[in-house]
């Protein structure tokens, strides 16, 4: 299969952490668990201030179908439920728990029974109950992805191990250290959607992971481990489907509708632990890297741990640390404070030093079309950028800006240092607002 058109080869900077074994981060003294850690409706708190909770205890239930439950990541006392700094930018409601340092687990009362005899619905129910969301970064509730619309049969479960974002190695480490559990999780997911086969896509430069995963999948004839071209953004869902199945899906179509379910390898691990051990999603692997971090590494972190507390364990940040990114440098979110917590979608924390932070003045577009040749979505990005710059959002809409996957390639290559991706996001947000206004006006 050929890869998607466009894309690029940014420096990967994975050397700093690819050999670092996953190690548990120290138990945080305080966790702040936002009710919104996923795409969809925020969860609803079911605890009260002053209440004592145990590790793994449900503290907020899903706030709708597209939503996910939140569980306590330490045992201790709920000290506050109020808006607190959130990686998405502003303050959002969160439950604050002060650890009692005992880390008492909740007695698991749900009997799993024989894993082999579980029905698809039981698996989906367990995933739902554990509050699992896509852990590649998008954080879309996993149980929703496991329920195809009526009349659609899922043929392929794609396991995403591409990990194309620079710096990040958490997926890689999980594939190296826990390949059997990842495959077991994948089999549960496969069963949940009754897929005929599993394809595991891994970028060709991760030879070790391809090896360990192939070994783990060795016994099963319906699992294929495929090496895919090293090219950013190969790990984007639609681009990965193209590479593995040769089919180009528009962004307006859900992969589900075409018979594909795509899940990240770390999500598969979480599914394995939720279904077989009844373990809710209260911790995750986080890569901490970047020149601003003294001792980069991969950590198993309790959700709600503040960036600051985790960074201390990576040898603290350099004196001139100037930018803190949740996720990788291509699609990650820059943070304004170290107080924000690790959430379900936090695949990494990358810290840049002052010299790496580029604040370039944007110049006029010279129509070099580098952005358009690199756009994996095949968009007329230069023209959309101009339309958005001058507030002509209806032109941006006509030019299909809604198909943009926000991968960042356009900004990356622009010689005039234009904030191309930002223009795309701004246009998309504006169009969404307009559509909502129209919907409201039409009386729905």
């Amino acid at each position: 299969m050929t890869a998607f058109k466009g894309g690029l080869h940014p420096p990967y900077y994975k050397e700093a952490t690819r050999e670092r074994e996953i190690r548990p981060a120290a138990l945080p003294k305080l966790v702040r668990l936002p009710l919104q850690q996923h795409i969809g409706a925020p969860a609803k708190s079911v605890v009260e201030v002053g209440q004592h909770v145990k590790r793994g205890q449900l503290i907020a239930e899903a706030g709708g179908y597209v939503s996910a439950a939140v569980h306590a990541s330490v045992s201790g006392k709920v000290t506050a439920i109020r808006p607190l700094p959130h990686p998405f930018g502003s303050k959002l409601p969160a439950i604050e728990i002060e650890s009692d340092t005992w880390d008492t687990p909740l007695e698991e009362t749900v009997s799993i029974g024989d894993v082999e005899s579980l029905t698809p619905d039981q698996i989906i129910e367990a995933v739902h109950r554990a509050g699992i969301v896509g852990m590649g970064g998008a954080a879309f509730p996993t149980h929703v992805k496991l329920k195809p619309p009526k009349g659609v049969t899922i043929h392929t479960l794609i396991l995403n191990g591409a990990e194309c974002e620079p710096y990040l190695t958490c997926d890689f480490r999980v594939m190296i250290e826990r390949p059997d559990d990842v495959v077991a999780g994948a089999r549960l997911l496969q069963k949940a959607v009754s897929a005929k086969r599993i394809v595991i896509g891994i970028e060709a430069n991760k030879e070790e992971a391809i090896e360990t995963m192939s070994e783990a999948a060795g016994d099963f004839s319906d699992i294929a481990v495929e090496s895919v071209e090293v090219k950013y953004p190969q790990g984007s869902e639609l681009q990965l489907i193209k590479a593995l199945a040769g089919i180009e899906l528009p962004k307006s179509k859900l992969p589900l509708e075409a018979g594909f379910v795509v899940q990240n390898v770390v999500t598969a691990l979480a599914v394995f632990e939720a279904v077989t051990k009844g373990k809710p999603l209260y911790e995750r692997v986080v890569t901490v890297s970047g020149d601003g971090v003294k001792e980069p590494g991969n950590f198993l972190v309790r959700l709600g741990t503040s960036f600051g507390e985790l960074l201390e364990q990576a040898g603290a940040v350099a004196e001139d640390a100037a930018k803190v990114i949740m996720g990788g440098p291509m699609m990650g979110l820059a943070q304004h404070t170290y107080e924000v917590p690790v959430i379900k979608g936090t695949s990494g924390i990358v810290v840049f030093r002052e010299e790496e932070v580029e604040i370039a003045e944007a110049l006029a577009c010279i129509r070099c079309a580098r952005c358009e040749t690199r756009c994996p979505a095949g968009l007329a990005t230069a023209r959309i950028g101009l339309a958005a710059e001058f507030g002509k959002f209806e032109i941006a809409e006509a030019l299909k800006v809604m198909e943009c996957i926000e991968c960042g390639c356009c900004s990356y290559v622009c010689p005039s240092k234009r904030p191309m991706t930002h223009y795309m996001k701004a246009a998309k947000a504006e169009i969404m607002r307009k559509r909502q206004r129209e919907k409201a006006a039409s009386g729905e």
Partner: protein
Amino acid sequence: MENRLLVVSSSPHFRAKGSTARIMCDVIVALLPAAVGGWIFFRNRALVVIAASVAAAVLTELLMLRMRKRKATAADLTSAVVTGILLAFCVTATLPWWGAVLGSAFGIAIAKHCFGGLGFNIFNPALAGRIFVMHAYIVQMTLWSPTYYEKQEREKSPAVHPEEATAQVDGETYATPLGKVKEGVQQKRPIEEIERSLPSYWRLFVGNVGGCLGETSALLLLVGAAYLLMRRVISIYIPLAFLGSLALLTWVFGGIHMVAGEPRMYLFHGDPLFHVLAGGAVLGAFFMATDMVTSPMTPKGMLIFGFGCGAITTIIRLWGGYPEGVSYSIFLMNICVPLIDRFTMPKLFGANFGK
């Protein structure tokens, strides 16, 4: 962790090296071999014209930016230098320095800044300036001069070019190769005689022929073009389509034979190599038509654009009043760019799904 101020900005958080100014500098570097060629063939006159043109371009750019209350960036200034050099390249070395100054100033002030400055101009500023000077000072612009070496040869053995034996060495009645063809056909001179008066392919390739200051040496221009291709500043689509269609069309329609003393078209007997090497085809195809701001954005659009340039050049050269048509062809195709862009959009990922 002490809360030092952190930088917050939209993703992505790092970018490729390279800048617009770097692109312009690459173009300047790529034009240097041909500039040296201009000096070799036309001596110090060439340097005077280039210097006057570049200085005027940069000063006009600064003036216009100030009038428009914009900050002068490295990108603006380096792009003005490119315009200055290109304008000098497509005028004669004998042009008085003020002619080059006028052309440059017109290109930058009118063709570039009246449309919004760098990135917003419809026409290639250098070409617009050239066309302005051409029409305002047609006499000065068509006083072609032979190269330094041609002059020396003639002084040694005037009989080599019998039809030019009487030509004054200062070149008043000197004609470019394309001019010789046009004149010869118009005067219904025998084909063999016209052909005899033309320089060899080698001379054309090296650039030891009369013409505009920087256009004569295909060799030196190609050296620069190779650099631009290697640096990926330009792609091959436009030059390929331009020169390819020019070669094809002049081969098909460019042949002439005499029927009862009248020149008639002789299909499939044209001289494509001559048409590609003579005049400003190589300069235009690699350095003018490829100007990003004034050319299409997709490979398909670039091929259409290049083909249009080649076709219009052919029409002007074979049937038009001027011996040369490269600058007009690019100028006319510049007008078509928005339309070409509109009909050659990039292919949307997933557009074929369900079809």
